[in-house]
């Protein structure tokens, strides 16, 4: 299994590497188009704020490469948000893989960021199949993707929103599977087993 984590600047990707290590797969960090295109699986992690992350993707041409990928791709947290059409964070245009605009939680009604373990429902196979009842996953975010046709899992924080998105070979999780204990490990294992 050739697993590549897209490297587009400083960030905390150690936890993702360790999570796959625990599953017996060594992830490889790369910013090279040739290595990313030929990987069996690609992880698109989240780094900092949407605006600066998107500029870094543009500088390296990764913004054009990622939407063209054919193998299973998993965007995590900000990674997932950047795969959307647009983000209200720094008024940033995204990669447009998912047809939804990322908006901010209502700070007058909610504690922001949402931080902690929230449970998922309306889960879409195959990435989220066979999970235990009320699967809890770790969320840390201030912006979210509303429900849309590509919603693959739902969570509630003030409103029901997309805890995960799916289109063709592209998956995104708002939560951090690498920090979500057994449930997260199961999701990552299922990502490795995807046949698409």
């Amino acid at each position, binding site marked *: 299994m050739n697993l590549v984590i897209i490297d587009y600047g*400083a960030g*905390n990707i*150690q*936890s993702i590497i*360790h*999570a796959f*290590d*625990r599953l017996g797969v060594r992830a490889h960090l790369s910013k090279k188009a040739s290595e990313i295109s030929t990987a069996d699986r690609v992880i698109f992690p989240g780094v*900092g*704020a949407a605006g600066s992350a998107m500029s870094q993707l543009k500088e390296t041409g990764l913004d054009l490469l990622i939407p063209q990928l054919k193998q299973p791709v998993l965007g995590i947290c900000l990674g997932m948000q950047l795969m959307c059409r647009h983000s209200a964070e720094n008024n940033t245009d995204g990669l447009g893989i998912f047809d939804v605009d990322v908006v901010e939680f209502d*700070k*007058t*009604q*909610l*504690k*922001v*960021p*949402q*931080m*902690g*373990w*929230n*449970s998922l429902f309306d889960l879409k196979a195959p990435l989220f199949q066979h999970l235990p009842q*009320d699967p*809890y996953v*770790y*969320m*840390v*975010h*201030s912006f979210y993707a509303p429900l849309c046709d590509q919603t693959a899992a739902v*969570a*509630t*924080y*003030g*409103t029901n929103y997309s805890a995960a998105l799916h289109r063709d070979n592209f998956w995104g999780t708002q939560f*951090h599977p*690498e*920090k*979500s*204990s*057994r449930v*997260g*490990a199961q999701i990552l294992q299922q990502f490795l087993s995807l046949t698409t």
Partner: protein
Amino acid sequence: MNSQNFQAKTMLSKRIIPCLDIKNGRTVKGVHFQDLKDAGDPVALAAQYAEQGADELVFLDITATEDARETMASLVLEVSKAIDIPFTVGGGIRSVSDVEKLLKNGADKISINSSAVRNPALIDELAQAFGSQCVVVAIDAKQINSLWKVHLVGGKVPTELDLFEWAQEAADRGAGELLFTSMDHDGSKQGYALESLAHLSEQLHIPIIASGGAGVPKHFLDAFTLGKADAVLAASVFHFGEIPIPNLKMYLATQGIAIRK
């Protein structure tokens, strides 16, 4: 802001956070786990807590010398290899570069206390560089003539700072979370400082972690209901096995608290 709204419209669970004091890379204060071969090994202890259902962990470096910081950075890497839940590292952090190393090695959040009071701009810098979500501001406070005064250096140095004013400033500067320890309650095992907790939780729009005073499961329940805390931190009741985490979580769930099982 009505904090009742927070409860009504989310399934977000309340968090249980064991705190490990670290000195020269080893846990201190004594840990009494029957099934741990080496109770001083923070990695083994962390793995044990993660297995038991702890929602997060906090590692507090109580030596915080230059050498100890290097030890801490490598410890963070080992912890991050071993556990799959989030963890926070605190103690002796003074700069963006201190934090960079810890996050790079796999810490999810860092906690700053005295250094934030001495240099409040550090909060802005860290929030700017790494995002608010990984900046926890810890405050130790004590009631003096019915006013809550902030204390520094593990509670040893009193200041004239008011708890609620400082907490507000920390949140405004970009803290993503507040860890409030009542020095009056810490070690008492008589329960958390519920009134001030509730005050903080209603005043600020960031999550509040309650610390200091846990003795029995009811104290955790009170911290969530009356104290309106988002998370509770405790050390000795966990380390000495007085309150096993699975039992605590089961108790809280039966009391109607949203808890990750």
